[in-house]
């Protein structure tokens, strides 16, 4: 792990100039490079939120592992949720290159001091939601994340390349589940439509507040942390999703959704931003539940983590290895979202 060296022997202005040149050239900033403190803080916040989103995001889909209606689907779902834990691991590692630890970040999350993507504050009320989340939520996450593969901070960008590959795989799995259900019984088709109705608007809100109400966007774009505005990405997502819905045989719950020849894009209604801000501020259907779940797991695991540390300390002279962190490599992966909305 590298921590920032504030060495006064160097002229800060010269360093800033070099940093700006790197950004301008669209090269990567690496952990050992000088960077403005505000850049570091912004990145820590964004990467941590992203990591937290992966970990909290395990819950809504994990809710259906025990009830997945076929063994094949159970295996796919379990592997997917496991992948989210793997994504969380890569991202916490990327954050650690900025001088924070995973434990610190987790403590902040469970204390409610750092955010995660609001989409996970919606409940999964039907097994079908597993497919819908794959298609729409992972789909929106990919739209948000693909540009991040070119983000200016090296470790984050490289983590995102791997994560995006895995995300797009899971998105296909989700869409394929819905396709299969649409070929099934009438009851199954109704389940798909019901689930899509519930997730359409929350998925659109995943791109964050409208550009005129997203104060951090400008600075993040100047730094190359963010490369597209919220509204640009939202429009792109709508344009891509409509033909998908048609192929699937479902509709989106928006009577104003229609092709605009002049703009070359689909028009759509304004999302309910009051609902959005309410969820961001903690009043969503599952905010408390998600955080309590994470806090419980973290608190209940404290004695295990302490035991592993104590064992490792006792073992320094001995050959035996502890099965803690060294035991598991980040696995392959799934679902995520940039919590753009918390940019507020």
């Amino acid at each position: 792990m590298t921590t920032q060296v504030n060495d006064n022997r160097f002229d800060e202005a010269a360093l800033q100039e070099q940093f700006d040149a790197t950004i301008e050239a669209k090269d990567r900033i690496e952990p050992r490079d000088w960077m403005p403190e505000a850049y570091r803080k912004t990145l820590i916040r964004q990467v941590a939120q992203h990591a937290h989103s992966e970990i909290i995001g395990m819950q809504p889909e994990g809710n259906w592992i025990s009830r997945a209606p076929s063994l094949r689907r159970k295996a796919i779902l379990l592997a997917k949720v496991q992948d989210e834990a793997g994504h969380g691991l890569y991202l916490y590692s990327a954050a650690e290159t900025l001088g924070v630890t995973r434990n610190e970040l987790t403590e902040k999350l469970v204390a409610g001091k750092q955010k995660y993507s609001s989409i996970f504050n919606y409940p999964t009320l039907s097994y079908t939601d597993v497919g819908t989340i794959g298609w729409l939520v992972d789909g929106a996450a990919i739209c948000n994340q693909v540009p991040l593969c070119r983000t200016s901070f090296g470790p984050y960008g490289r983590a995102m390349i791997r994560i995006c590959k895995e995300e797009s795989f899971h998105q296909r799995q989700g869409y394929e589940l819905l396709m299969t259900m649409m070929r099934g019984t009438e009851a199954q088709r109704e389940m798909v439509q019901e689930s899509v109705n519930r997730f359409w608007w929350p998925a659109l809100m995943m791109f964050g507040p409208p550009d005129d109400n997203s104060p951090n966007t400008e600075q993040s774009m100047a730094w190359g942390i963010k490369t597209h505005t919220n509204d640009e990405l939202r429009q792109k997502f709508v344009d891509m999703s409509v033909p998908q819905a048609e192929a699937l045989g479902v509709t989106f719950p928006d009577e104003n959704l229609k092709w605009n020849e002049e703009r070359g894009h689909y028009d759509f209604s304004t999302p309910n931003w009051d609902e959005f801000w309410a969820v961001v501020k903690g009043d969503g259907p599952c905010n408390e539940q998600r955080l309590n779940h994470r806090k419980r797991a973290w608190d209940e695991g404290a004695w295990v983590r302490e035991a592993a540390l104590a064992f490792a300390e006792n073992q320094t002279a001995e050959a035996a290895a502890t099965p803690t962190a060294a035991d598991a490599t980040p696995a392959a992966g799934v679902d995520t979202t940039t919590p753009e909305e918390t940019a507020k």
Partner: protein
Amino acid sequence: MTANNEPTIHVEHDEAGTNVDHGDHDNAYSGLLVNDANWAFGTDFEDPLAGVDTTVPDGVDAKDLGAYCLMLGDDALVFSQRISEWCSNAPDLEEDIALANIALDLLGQARLLLARAAAADPELVPELPAGSPVPDEDRLAYFRNDLGFRNVRLAEVPGGDFAEAVAKILIYSTWRLSIFERLTDSRDTVLAAIAAKGVKEMSYHRDFAGRWVVTLARGTEESKSRLLKALDGLWPLWSELFETHPVETAVAEAGIGVDPATVADEASVILDQVFAAAGIDRPERGGLAGVGVHGGKGRDGLHTEALSKLLAEMQVVAREHPEGQW
């Protein structure tokens, strides 16, 4: 990590992305409507034993083979279901991932074993409305009640802390690995292949659990006392693992299965090695009694109260849609 989530002898669900080129990532949907080579695997259900010769060997009673595979398959399925409950609940991310791997391995074993059971004895498979697309492995998993399940009772033990989880995995995998190692010589080549795959997986499970048992035993006072309590609570289920059911006698005689009594000594020795490394004593408690007129246990379909609840949850969606496609 030995993550092999493949439930089948041939691949149908790849661990995400490892050998899939998704091409242009700028477009989240490129190819989503195209039936290209990278299309999400398993657009349709594939029989886990597709392409495998499932002929029952000469001199083997197909009903015994089916019943035996059902026992082994139910062990793996029910234990997998329990371990998967840890998902998002483990002490740290590494353990969450490791426990999910173990659950996935067991689930893969269950699918193969249930498919083998159905192929050997189609009469085992519950009937559904004519035309139902539900495959045999899912009919067996989702449309039998608890009296039809043949798993040992250890597999269904609910809840518990992390110490109990690793203690359970250690006991289960030590027992099952000894059986699978012998089963690789089964005259039923399908069962032998399933066991060979399982041996690799269970070796990792036993190693994972063994190292954690040692860590907890030699960690803090609290971790040691939790571990001892967990082992003590589980111990009454140990002896059941080595009791021979008549079906197991029959398949052992036919050279296709293993009489669990024959692995009792080996499993005991291995467990004692772990206990020695951990510096703890083997619990001293008798076996948990069976129920009913003949003192039936898990292999007889007589379980703890926990199993019917586990099944109620596991089966609820599938049972609501007996003609559903997933």
